[in-house]
């Protein structure tokens, strides 16, 4: 369960307040969506939760399964069960996808005091997970995200999620740059990972993705706050009327 209380965040180097009191609770097993216009603070929220540099928390707190996140290093947050699927997955030439994933999986296991996976165990596991995401072994052999299409990059993110088995997954505009088929494939991958002890926070501009990943709750974010929350119908309302009416309504 992710609990965010009164979270205030500014840019580290500039006197610019981006989050102005975010309150949000995502109970275990639920899928929540955050929608909102450009510049409302959606991506900042995902970065602050996962520990990216460049932001200063000026007030508030965030906890995952009772553990306070904000003091942790990014790798500690990951080991605690947080996963961020990037809007723009990073290309790392010269580092094999397998090496990267095995390093990540074993680093997390080590951090949690679990035994590391042997090469054979890892290989078996990744082959099995990759197959369900239609990721072929050639893609696993390539350097991380290098030469991957937009769809392949996002599938690779979901593969990482599947391998790392987080309790809280944040998807930052995972639908951006995807055609309909690729989006369906990614959504199927996410849906296959739904479990009673795993929550999702899906950040998106469009309702489209939410047709495929059905949310339990939809939040509208504007000017650094959650201004409205509701059921899936809220996303449809945004799709039909845009943000203008909705934001005027909440003042």
């Amino acid at each position, binding site marked *: 369960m992710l609990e965010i209380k009164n979270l205030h965040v500014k840019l580290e180097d500039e006197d610019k307040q981006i989050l102005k009191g975010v309150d949000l609770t995502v109970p275990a097993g639920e899928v929540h969506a955050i929608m909102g216009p450009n510049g409302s603070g959606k991506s900042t929220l995902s970065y602050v939760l*996962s*520990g*990216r*540099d460049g932001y200063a928390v000026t007030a508030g707190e965030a906890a995952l399964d009772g553990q306070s996140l904000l003091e942790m*290093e*990014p*790798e500690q*947050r*990951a*080991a605690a069960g947080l*996963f*961020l699927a*990037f809007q723009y*997955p*990073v290309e*790392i*030439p*010269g*580092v094999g996808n397998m*090496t*990267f994933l095995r*390093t*990540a*999986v074993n*680093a*997390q296991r080590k*951090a949690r005091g679990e035994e590391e996976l042997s090469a054979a165990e890892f290989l078996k596991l990744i082959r099995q997970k990759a197959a369900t995401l239609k990721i072929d072994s050639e893609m696993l052999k390539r*350097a991380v995200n290098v030469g991957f299409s937009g769809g392949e990059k996002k599938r690779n993110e979901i593969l*990482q999620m599947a391998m*790392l088995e987080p309790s809280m997954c944040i998807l930052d505009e995972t639908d951006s740059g995807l055609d309909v088929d690729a989006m369906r494939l990614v959504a199927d991958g996410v849906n296959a990972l739904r479990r009673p002890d795993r929550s999702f926070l899906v950040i998106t501009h469009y309702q489209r993705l939410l047709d495929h990943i059905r949310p339990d709750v939809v939040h509208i974010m504007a000017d650094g706050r959650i201004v409205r929350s509701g059921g899936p119908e809220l996303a449809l309302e945004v799709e039909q009327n845009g943000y203008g009416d909705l934001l005027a309504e909440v003042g």
Partner: protein
Amino acid sequence: MADTAVLVAQVPTVEGKVRPGQAALAAHLDALDLPRGGFSRAARQDAAQRLEAMGLPGARDEYWRYTDPAPFNAARPEPLEFAADDATLFTAIDRLHLVFVDGRFDAAASDPLTAEGVEIESLAAADAGDDHWASGLYGRLEAAGQVPVKRPFAALNTLAAADGLLIRVTGQVARPVHITYRRSALDADVHLHHVVKLEEGAELTLLESGVLGARSNVVIEADLARGARLHHLSAKRAKDPKLGLGHIFARVGAEALFKSFTLSVNGAMMRNEAVIDIAGDDAVAHIAAAVLGDGNIGRFHHDDTVFVIHGAERCESRQVFKKVLKNGAEGIFQGKILVKPGAQKTDGYQISQGLLLDEGSQFLAKPELEIYADDVKCSHGSTTGALDETALFYLRSRGVPRERAIVLLVLSFLADALDEIEDTRLREDILGRLEDWLTERAGNPGKA
């Protein structure tokens, strides 16, 4: 004309004075025990004359603008306490292993000098006689490489080298020839001169590793006949601040392939010069380096100065230089491609990149192209930058600890250079050691 005459009159004369470079040279030569030479005597005398004319480089020498020649000019190196060098590279590979200690061939520690398709002798042994196949090569490529830029330390090496290897390859050599350098004296001032001759269609892999001495000056002259292939791989790691100079002079014949890769890790003030003369049509020459420098171990300054000459048609050259620098380390790259008239369809490429892990380190690059043919493809690029923060965050967000993530990103940065090692086993060996060293260093910031 009158004005010119006045100007000439105002130029102070140097006649009767000894130029600083010559004074340094005299002191330097005094400190050396110069071999008399057997078959190499004429070449040594020729080198002495050329050296006398050029002197040692001065601080104002344009070619030494980024590297201070003073420590190399000094008559003797400072004695250097050194940690035990690790000599585990290439040990898992079936190779012909040859050992030099303080710049002298150690036959007892080496494999017998016999292998199919190759003749090998030590220079010291061969130079006892007056007749040798290498007499037509020793000092010849070095002398040719003195134009248009003077390389005094290479001439000094031809004059002063006490030992080295003379390798003549006539066929396919199955096992790589691996030279391990060891040191025992604290103040060893080593001059080594290797001559490698590959006959038509011959192939050799030449490996170098280890640490030569407190100060070293190594010349390799490599002559590749038609269709010959030479893979040269040098990996050196010093845990202390030694001084090193290296020169490679290669003449690459038609359809021949020359590939050289150098890995330098830590603790050195180093200058490597390469003169690659691509003399025959359809030849290929690649030269690459990966450098890891940490200024906390001692002054780290690493200079790669490369001159590639295209003198024939349809040839390919590629220079890939990558330097990772931290704690005030300095990386230099001077690289030039010269395309002579008539060298049509030349494909020349050059990239030099510095990865600065802190603000105190610097990377200086001076890329040059000089082209006298009109149907060629030449490109060069140079970048200097810090670690990609987004990539670092990406790795950490997957649970990879910061130090480990930095190791992965450094390996990522070096990948293009490492890819120049064609042999998979050798590349894996280098990569494995590199990863170990990086990991070791990451765990001990600021210490050797």
